[in-house]
């Protein structure tokens, strides 16, 4: 097979003006944190990017107080005015998209092609979409005058730092709530740049507050008695703890948790497209995607053909510098996550599955894991049951559509699923039977602010996006 040599095509990082240290964003101003600061690093090189403040419980309390105070003004403001602030924010995000994309790739390790072409456009679109709802809430079907909840405490993950911020903040603000948001410990920088954007937009102080720190800071946000609404995206394990914490408090809760999606390929599927879809399904964003298609269910009769095509395609993926515009696979976000991926992959081998990766040089520094495919996987294997949250695909087979449904649904999760077949009635039959919140047919990993996203079963509850995404932030 011909291999193409690419010259390096790095995106310049000069557009990002990194400060040596960052504070918390409370009541419209940056402030020091009381906890001991932590450093955030570039996972592709392990170089330190900046020091970031840690918010203590007292700092969180100040942020909640600021949000409470701002709630009066913000919720009383005509929806049309709130809308204009959100439109303004959407526009500034578009104006500063390049800077945000580079910063996201630096802090997260994801390829610039993805942060530039997926994350940032979706972030701006999400604010633009919910801005338009702010003065139309009475038409959303939640009553004549639906009311906001108050102060929303929001905790987000590191896989799509700015996009998850947008999914949380845009609908909350549109509905008239104010927020205290905690970004992930390993990826706080774009949230702090977003704080600066709030300042540029002249957003009233206290409407958006950003508190940085680790799990303890998040726990303080969730447990704060003056928070009316908790929204969390992250692991099912932490989601359970949050649901227990919130129990008995009357706080409204939405959770977007883990997944173990089946990507189901039938023998009549357009195979080249299916291969692309499978690759996109699990290797997009290094597999750090809760809705990743981490289980490939392939119809037995085409297993060999599909796997040959898949392996050929994986051989062409380029792993390396996230800022290189030709990079397909970036860095694993943290040493901790890399250790988890390694340990589960080793377990996969121990349990008897066959491991394969393309020839792939890994950089000396940073956190890297090659695209990996396991074949001969049984449903009982841990790599078929647990969320790896990395570029690791488990391949299982099936013979009949009913067996595919049975296997796809055989998981405590229910976030997403994929179907590949040319037969329309089969798509609809499968889509009906799959217990998952998002079903991609002949496509995968598509997102849009107008389309609700969220899970069944232990993948959490509540939806983000679309009209139904408003429900999470209204007193209904």
């Amino acid at each position, binding site marked *: 097979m011909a291999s193409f040599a690419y010259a390096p095509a790095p995106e310049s990082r000069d557009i990002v003006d990194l400060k040596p240290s960052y504070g918390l964003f409370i009541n419209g101003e940056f402030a020091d944190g009381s906890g001991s600061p932590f450093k955030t690093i570039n996972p592709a090189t392990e170089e330190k990017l900046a020091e970031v403040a840690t918010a203590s419980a007292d700092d969180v309390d100040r942020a909640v107080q600021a949000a409470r105070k701002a709630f009066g003004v913000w919720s009383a403001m005509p929806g049309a005015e709130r809308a204009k602030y959100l439109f303004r924010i959407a526009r500034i995000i578009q104006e500063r998209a390049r800077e945000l994309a580079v910063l996201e790739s630096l802090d997260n390790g994801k390829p610039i092609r993805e942060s530039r072409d997926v994350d940032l456009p979706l972030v701006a679109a999400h604010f633009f979409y919910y801005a338009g709802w702010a003065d139309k809430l009475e038409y959303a079907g939640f009553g004549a005058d639906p009311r906001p909840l108050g102060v929303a405490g929001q905790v987000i993950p590191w896989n799509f730092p700015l996009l998850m911020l947008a999914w949380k903040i845009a609908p909350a603000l549109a509905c008239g709530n104010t927020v205290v948001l905690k970004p992930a410990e390993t990826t706080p920088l774009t949230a702090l740049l977003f704080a600066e954007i709030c300042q540029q937009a002249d957003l009233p102080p206290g409407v958006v507050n950003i508190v940085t720190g680790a799990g303890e800071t998040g726990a303080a946000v969730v447990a704060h008695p003056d928070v009316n609404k908790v929204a969390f995206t992250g692991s099912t394990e932490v989601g359970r703890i949050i649901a227990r914490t919130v*129990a008995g408090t009357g706080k409204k809760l939405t959770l977007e948790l883990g997944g173990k999606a089946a990507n189901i390929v039938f023998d009549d599927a357009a195979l080249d497209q299916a291969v692309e879809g499978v690759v996109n399904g699990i290797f997009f964003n290094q597999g750090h995607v809760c809705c990743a298609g981490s289980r490939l269910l392939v119809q037995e009769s085409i297993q060999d053909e599909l796997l040959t095509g898949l392996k050929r395609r994986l051989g062409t993926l380029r792993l390396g510098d996230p800022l290189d515009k030709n990079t397909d696979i970036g860095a694993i976000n943290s040493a901790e996550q890399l250790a988890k991926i390694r340990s589960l992959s080793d377990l996969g081998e121990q349990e008897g599955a066959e491991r394969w990766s393309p020839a792939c040089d890994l950089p000396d520094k940073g956190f890297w894991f090659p695209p990996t495919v396991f074949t001969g996987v049984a449903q009982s294997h841990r790599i078929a049951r647990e969320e790896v949250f990395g570029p690791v695909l488990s391949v299982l087979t099936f013979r009949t559509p009913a067996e595919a449904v049975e296997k796809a649904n055989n998981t405590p999760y229910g976030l997403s699923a994929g179907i590949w077949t040319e037969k329309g009635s089969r798509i609809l039959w499968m889509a009906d039977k799959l217990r998952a*919140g*998002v079903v991609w047919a002949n*496509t995968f990993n598509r997102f*849009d602010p*107008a389309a609700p996203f969220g899970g069944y079963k232990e993948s959490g509850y509540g939806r983000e996006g679309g009209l139904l995404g408003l429900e999470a932030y209204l007193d209904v």
Partner: protein
Amino acid sequence: MSRLAVRKTYKLYIGGAFPRSESGRSYAVTSPKGDFLANASRASRKDVRDAVVAARKAFPGWSGATAYNRGQILYRIAEMLEGRRAQFAEELGGGKKAALEAVDATVDRLVWYAGWSDKIASVHGTANPVAGPYFNLSSPEPTGVVGVVAPEDPLVGLISVIAPAIVTGNTCVVIASERTPLPSITLAEVLATSDLPGGVVNVLTGHQQELAPWLAAHMDVNGLDLTGVSDADLALTCEQAAAENLKRVLRPSPDEDWRAAPALTRMTRFLETKTVWHPMGV
């Protein structure tokens, strides 16, 4: 001399059958004045598990039935209830006029919910105009098996928690009002003769404190309606237990006005949204 009446044995309702509690226990139910009315079955945690198994077994068929069919069956329940108007009024006790009004309100509530079966998807689903060449539709689907702790109100309250759970395709396990459980079993007789498949509604009588935590902690229950829980500690225990498998929880509202027009919340809390994408092309 007047004829000696043949009394009814009040049993549980599980999987379409009327078994006694496997524990062999019962408890005396009395009128507000303290007169003995009947011995009701006192269900055990094993009965809870049996009921969940029955509800899970009924789920594929009931959720897979057409919305029209589910609406027809709920309407049929209303018809059957109307036919037993006098029996229910007598069992409810109290003033005859008030009792008849309660039965009427129950029938009307059922008719209201019956009509929602084929309309909820139209008002709670969305066609999504995404920024790309994709067909994109979101539709509501039932959550699965819902555990229900019924409120004190023995009939209007009871039907107001059962009907919204099942009309959308969920199946349920109901812990009836502890003090006034008898109408729940008579309602089960109505359900059993209304073409409602066995296992869609399962009714347990017994002690709320004893049964609710098992239902709340059961890993094959997807949703939990705590409406009838008035004890704050019990509510907390149940909600915490429900967190283990991320059950959708409807929090307690023991003082709800059951005559007021309901919101959609009792249906939507136990609905999932499924969004389906497909590319457009030739």
